């Protein structure tokens, strides 16, 4: 399903927090329709890297090109990139003062400037896709974690992004809720969405990823297709990491 056209290009990207070098010379090319899973120990810079892609974090040197638009300080470019890229967070970050439906229509009404009625139709369509249309009138605080994360996915999809970023979408969930969220993500992957997903769900990685990337101390240490990545890891750090997460 992947084409040769690249959706995201990171070229020699570096980022510092003060003196701390978080991301070191990152080079990554993501083709349209490609599904990438990023894993690695905590503090390795995985979240920071994908947060740079929609400019929630600023990079200092190197290039980030999203759908042909290079990210710079220019606010118009940042806006354009954010229109192409949807994001789901570890802690969902739904807006607690708005209903589920209003959470989904907010961007449609105020960013896409759709009339309210139309926005609600679009929102309901995506709420049905994540299988919770019946919760539309509730507030996020009344839903379970898994339901909240599915609302968050629907909220991003409403903006019809070409690329979806997932930042540990299941890490804050109870085990029995992880599946319902992963199911939605698998469906999305099957439809050909370009996805970058920071996760430790190795089952998900094996099932949908075209490529698995392993990061440690701010560098991409190893990247491979899931089969080779899990069965024949090359780098010692990757081996250690995999033995730790699978070994018990």
């Amino acid at each position: 399903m992947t084409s040769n056209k690249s959706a995201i290009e990171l070229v020699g990207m570096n980022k510092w927090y003060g003196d701390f070098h978080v991301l070191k010379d990152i080079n990554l090319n993501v083709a349209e329709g490609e599904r990438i899973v990023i894993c690695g120990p905590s503090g390795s810079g995985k979240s920071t890297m994908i947060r740079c892609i929609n400019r929630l974090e600023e990079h200092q040197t190197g290039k980030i090109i999203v759908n042909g638009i290079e990210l710079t300080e220019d606010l118009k470019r940042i806006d354009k990139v954010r229109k192409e890229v949807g994001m789901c967070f570890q802690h969902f970050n739904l807006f607690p003062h708005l209903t589920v439906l209003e959470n989904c229509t907010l961007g449609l009404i105020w960013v896409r400037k759709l009339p309210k009625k139309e926005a609600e139709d679009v929102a309901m369509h995506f709420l049905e896709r994540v299988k919770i249309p019946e919760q539309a009138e509730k507030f996020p605080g009344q839903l379970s974690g898994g339901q909240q994360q599915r609302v968050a996915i629907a909220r991003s999809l409403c903006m019809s992004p070409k690329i979806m970023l997932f930042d540990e979408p299941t890490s804050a969930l109870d085990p029995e809720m992880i599946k319902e969220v992963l199911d939605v993500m698998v469906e999305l992957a099957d439809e050909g969405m370009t996805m970058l997903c920071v996760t430790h769900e190795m089952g998900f990685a094996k099932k949908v990823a075209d490529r698995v990337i392993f990061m440690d101390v701010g560098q991409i240490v190893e990247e491979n297709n899931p089969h080779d990545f899990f069965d024949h890891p090359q780098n010692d750090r990757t081996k250690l990491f995999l033995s730790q997460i699978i070994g018990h």
Partner: protein
Amino acid sequence: MSDFKALPDLPAPTSSTGLAGWFRSNLFSTPINSVVSVISIYFIVSFLIPVLDWAFVSAVWTGEGNAACEQASGACWIFIEDRISIFSYGIYPADQTWRLDIAFALLAVSFGPQFFDKFPFKMPLAIFSLTAFPLISFYLISGGAFGLEYVPTERWGGLSLTLILAFVGIVAALPIGVVVALGRRSEMPVIRSVCIGFIELWRGIPLISVLFMSSVMLPLFLPEGMNFDKLLRALIGITMFQSAYMAEVIRGGLQAIPRGQYEAASAMGLGYWGQMRLVVLPQALKLVIPGIVNTFIALFKDTTLVLIIGLLDVLALVQSAIEDPAWGAVETEGYVFAAFCFWVFCFSMSRYSQKLERKLHTGHKR
């Protein structure tokens, strides 16, 4: 096999319902509680009886002039009745007071429905009361246009002046406070310093000196012949002063909003103002409703300070009325009346804020 023998009946459980039950469980549940209850009831009753007697039973409600009050041991309410129009309108021309009545009736009609849940046109009415209403009432009260007689602000006074000061102060201080609070958290150093300067300046000066400066010192700095209204100067002083407090209250709310909310809103493509207006401020303001209303109530009561620059609000008029030799000792009545006026408005604000908090509560925060 022994005969069946029923155990003796237990005594009936003590009643826990009805008046007797309520007394037993709430006031006399243990010997110590009973003693405390009896002592408290004794003190409350011995304090309340004279107060109620003074205010209602022995009070004089009807009659003419001081003579009617001379024999009475209770409150002389006919003094208040006699002066009610001056307390309400000050020295506003007596034949024009209907204009004030209309303005405040409009206020009641446009704000009153906000106290009720199911009332049609609440939103349009709220917008009206914040936009068209101030303009209409300004022309209505001040006149000088549409064939209405011009009434200079020197003649505004009484409870109506108190309400005008409080209304303008509240309506202006909230938005200014929001803007200053946002400015104080801005990443742009110039805007941030200006806002910090504004807050620290106004918060560091007592309101009395702000009012003094506005009425005595400011004219010295203005070019000759240029003069603007004393009431307007007082209003600006009060508004600036309370905006500084308001800004700090609102900043408290802004700081309580987790970063994830800003990030989710940016990821969605909302710009700074969109994020603030649609995501951050609605949550932040809701969090600090108690603090905001606290500031409103303080503002309402602080309006009494305008008497030191010669504006006659309700308290100032009460003070001058009780010195009238035509009446006996009516200080208590006067001050109780003034206190009651303030209490009614402050209490309504407090109730409204509690209602608003309940209404805006949307379950657990995430």
